[in-house]
């Protein structure tokens, strides 16, 4: 891994000052259909950034490209690591991405039913477990300490989410709103610098959405990270994002502040066209 880092460093892809992530001309096709086409946008440090667009616009596909679940046909996904190094995520395997400080949630909740809520959060802390299978098997002091420290951290996140009393309950059978929060919490446990949320407010009622708005603000402040999210709930997006990228049929329509996006003719057309 150090090798690739070095190699990347030599080419040293540049990112503008204050930019955390940049998708540069990314494209992908599925059997002739261009799901994402030459898309470029960037997310700054400590920014909440939204991606909007009609169903099938390619939003989730963009997330899959960023997190290396899909490999882009062309283009680069540049990310600034904690140490300032800029890397192209395309050179990484899927599970390596989170180690760089970038973590995602899923449009269809992907939690582990057989684990308690606390344990689900601990799955998010996986990259911080450094002891070997053997020391875990023998419960050596190092393994026990690590487990204790990270479990405490998980409990802190649970209390941040207001779910302390459910810590030991299984994920299976929890209400939808709780599951959504746990997915967010799981992402937090990896100590990310960028959290990518795929429709975090989908399926939530008004109070829950308000709750989520508060959480996102608190995360930005307390955890000092940027948030990139996809959302159909316009009020939520407009409320929460500093900048928004509107896309349709895999292409960028416009980027701007919520006001600019709301007023943008191409965006209005895409949304009116959809109805």
């Amino acid at each position, binding site marked *: 891994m150090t090798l690739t880092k070095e190699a990347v460093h030599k080419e040293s892809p540049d990112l503008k000052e204050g930019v955390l992530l940049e998708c540069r001309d990314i494209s992908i096709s599925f059997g002739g259909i261009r799901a994402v086409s030459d898309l470029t946008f960037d997310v700054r440090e400590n920014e909440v950034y939204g991606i909007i667009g009609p169903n099938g616009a390619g939003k989730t596909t963009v997330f899959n490209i960023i*997190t290396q679940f899909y490999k882009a046909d062309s283009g680069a996904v540049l990310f600034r690591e904690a140490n300032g190094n800029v890397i192209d995520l395309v050179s990484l395997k899927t599970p390596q991405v*989170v180690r760089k400080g970038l973590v995602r949630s899923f449009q269809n909740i992907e*939690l*582990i*039913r057989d684990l*308690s809520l606390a344990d689900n959060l601990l*799955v998010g802390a*996986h990259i911080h477990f450094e002891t070997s*299978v053997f020391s875990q*098997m023998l419960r050596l002091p190092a393994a026990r300490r690590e487990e204790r420290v990270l479990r405490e951290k998980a409990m802190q996140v649970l209390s941040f989410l207001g779910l302390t009393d459910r810590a030991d309950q299984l994920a299976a059978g929890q209400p939808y709103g709780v599951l959504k929060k746990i997915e967010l919490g799981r992402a937090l446990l990896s100590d990310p610098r960028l959290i990518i949320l795929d429709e975090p407010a989908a399926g939530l009622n008004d109070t829950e959405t308000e709750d989520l708005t508060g959480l996102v603000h608190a995360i930005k402040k307390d955890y000092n990270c940027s948030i990139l999210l996809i959302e159909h709930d316009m009020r939520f997006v407009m409320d929460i994002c500093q900048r928004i990228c509107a896309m349709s049929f895999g292409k960028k329509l416009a980027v701007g502040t919520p006001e600019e996006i709301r007023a943008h003719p191409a965006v209005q057309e895409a949304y009116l066209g959809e109805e």
Partner: protein
Amino acid sequence: MKLTKTKTFPYWKYIIVCLLFLVMLPLNAAGIVSGSTLLILGTVIFYAVVGVGMNILLGYSGLITLGGAGFMGLAAYLSGFCSTRLGLPFILCLVISIAVPTVIGLGIGVVSLRLEGFYLAIATLGIGEILRQVFVEFEPFTNGFSGMRAAYPKLFGIVLTREVTYAFYAIILLIVMILVHNIVNSATGRALLAMKGSESAAQAMGISLLKYKLIAFAISTVLTALGGVMYMHLIKYSYPTVWGLGMSLNFLSISVIGGMQTVLGAVLGALFVIAVPELVIKQLPVIGTLTGVAYVFNGLFIVLVLLFYSDGLIRIGSDVKKLVGKIRGKKNDIDQRSGT
């Protein structure tokens, strides 16, 4: 709540199970439990060891193997060969007989783990059958159809008696259960369950699927091989037809019937799959004399468990607890995760 939970000693249930096995020894000495029953219970013990390994695969990792019998047989033959022909001490036989199948298993694993579901089942079935064929053909090593003989384990220069071997096995089972309990309740166990629950989420959280699939296969192969060594030095006889698909299916039954996402379930499963047919069904008038009645019984039982009790028999304990709790109106105190 969490704090008190981590502080309580989590191994009592395993110790109790071990003691229940051990208590058969004085009962045997007193003439209450027969020698053949003791032998069957010894068989249950090594099947339980293999079953625990099967649970790691099936219950915790969502992987399957139908080649278990081949690896168990390989370990049995290796241990027989090392002890009888080479005269090596038991501990060394044990190490060799576990290491070789595990290395072979991992090698095959790297290739076959790229397969999923049915394909993995078929591939492992093929590997198991190849191994069985090797036992038939490789006569200088295995004695072919005439079979290979072995003795009870020889520890510290003394050949154990049947009773001491039995006690020794009960303690091996205890150690296995405790170590596996630790694994499944650690970050490794969570990673395995995450992989089973959602491969996407697992990868997004930094869990390498290949690495954890190999870990799961390694643990299960080690335990299967350990079971093979135990088989060889209790049954003291091995011939190729034993190590066929039927036995691999027994491992599946043990896992499913007992409760695949538990450690203790394997013991319960082994009791039902191995001991109940021998000790109960075969004693019944008429039905007991039919050949293959054990298989019919197991088949029926799997269907019943899958239909009505898909978490396995181990859940009976916590369900009863739940029921009692409900009656007392203390629903909330019940730890939903009991049974692991």
